[in-house]
């Protein structure tokens, strides 16, 4: 089966970020999306630690150690940026002011349930961060992830088995194999990675995919 690279999944998702959107990108794979948004679209990225208008990494010698994003990476401001405290930041998130949040996931279910903060392994301390706040407040939640785990077990499920981040919150899932919408009837295929068939993808997906 043909699997897209992480960069190519991010590139595919970036096509769906419209001009003038306010967007929060989660840590890891979601963070790659900003690089691939097509030229000519002005997108404002919000980072939960108090910056709207996240710019690229600083040029050598221009880093400000107190100017970072949620993954603790050094960033810059852009024209139109603003700084604010945590209460204002989460007003943006919970209050429905952002348009899109892009998050990673352990598991996504056909009813839109998302699990991305804790596993069943109790020996590791859980870490929730801002994910639960984003999923209740941002109207469009896009998940970006690999379609299956390293051991081949499915991540696109009928029901999540890990603790939920939020019930029924996911709008769309972007993986290395396909793009799937969450509908009232379950997952519906939006498009396939080049060279794959729906049957190929269905074979490694626990949930049913409607065509």
């Amino acid at each position, binding site marked *: 089966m043909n699997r897209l690279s992480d960069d190519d999944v991010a590139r595919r998702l970036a096509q769906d970020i419209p001009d003038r959107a306010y967007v929060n990108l989660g840590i890891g794979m979601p963070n790659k999306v900003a690089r691939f948004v097509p030229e000519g679209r002005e997108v404002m990225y919000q980072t939960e630690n108090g910056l709207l208008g996240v710019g690229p990494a600083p040029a050598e010698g221009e880093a400000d150690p*107190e100017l970072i*994003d949620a993954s603790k990476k050094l960033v810059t401001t852009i024209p139109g940026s603003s700084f604010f405290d*945590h209460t204002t930041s*989460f007003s943006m998130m*919970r209050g429905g002011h952002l348009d899109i949040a892009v998050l990673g996931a352990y598991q996504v279910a056909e009813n839109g349930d998302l699990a991305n903060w804790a596993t069943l392994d109790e020996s590791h301390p859980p*870490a*929730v961060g*801002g994910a639960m*706040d984003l999923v209740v407040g941002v109207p469009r939640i896009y998940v970006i992830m690999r379609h299956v785990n390293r051991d081949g077990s499915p991540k696109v499920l009928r029901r999540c088995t890990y603790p*939920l981040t939020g019930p029924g919150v996911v709008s769309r899932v972007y993986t290395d194999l396909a793009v799937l919408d969450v509908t009232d009837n379950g997952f519906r295929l939006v498009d396939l990675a080049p060279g794959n068939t729906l049957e190929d993808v269905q074979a490694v997906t626990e949930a049913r995919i409607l065509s």
Partner: protein
Amino acid sequence: MIDKRVASLTKAVASIRPGDVVMIGGFGSAGIPYGLIDALAQTGVGGLTVISNNAGAGEEGISALLRCGQVARVICSYPRTPGSIWFERRYEAGEVELEVVPQGTLAERIRAAGSGIGGFFTRTGYGTKLAEGKETRIIDGHGYVFEKPLHADIALIRAEAADRWGNLRYHATARNFNPVMATAARHTIVEARMVLDEPMEPEGVVTPGIFVDAVTQYEVRP
């Protein structure tokens, strides 16, 4: 005369008692009051409950308090970060209790405490493990969870600049939890990169001095 300036970091933290609940500003390494935390580590005062977004990384900051065995309990949103070795060591040994709170709920619980609000309903966490045992309510068709205010004895705050009245402003993403935590403690202690001789321009004040009890200088940036 109002003058909240204190001569040293050591004097600034002298009022912290064993068992105190201590809020510590910062996110990642930005806005963490490293100077005050270091001074607190040197006192050896123990049994502390630390409220902060993270639970320290590397050897400095909250990690130093954990390494010195001064922390009994951590309330935070994201304890596990690259380099959070001291937290993980204490947690796995059962030496520190952990309460995980969604980040926005953490900020809002602190805001409630500082603003005299007895709690609030939020959609965050509804239908998840973090809502178990909490009061819930359906409001306009959506499920909400009741969350209580989060008070502290002490707040340790990092600011860019302070004046003798305790007015504060911040730098870039070092603001984060600092302004809200400054409102929610019985005693708020600030380290500022600059302590101004002149009053701060009123339009530029982010935290009004009424929320601040002590100000000391610590020039080092992370």
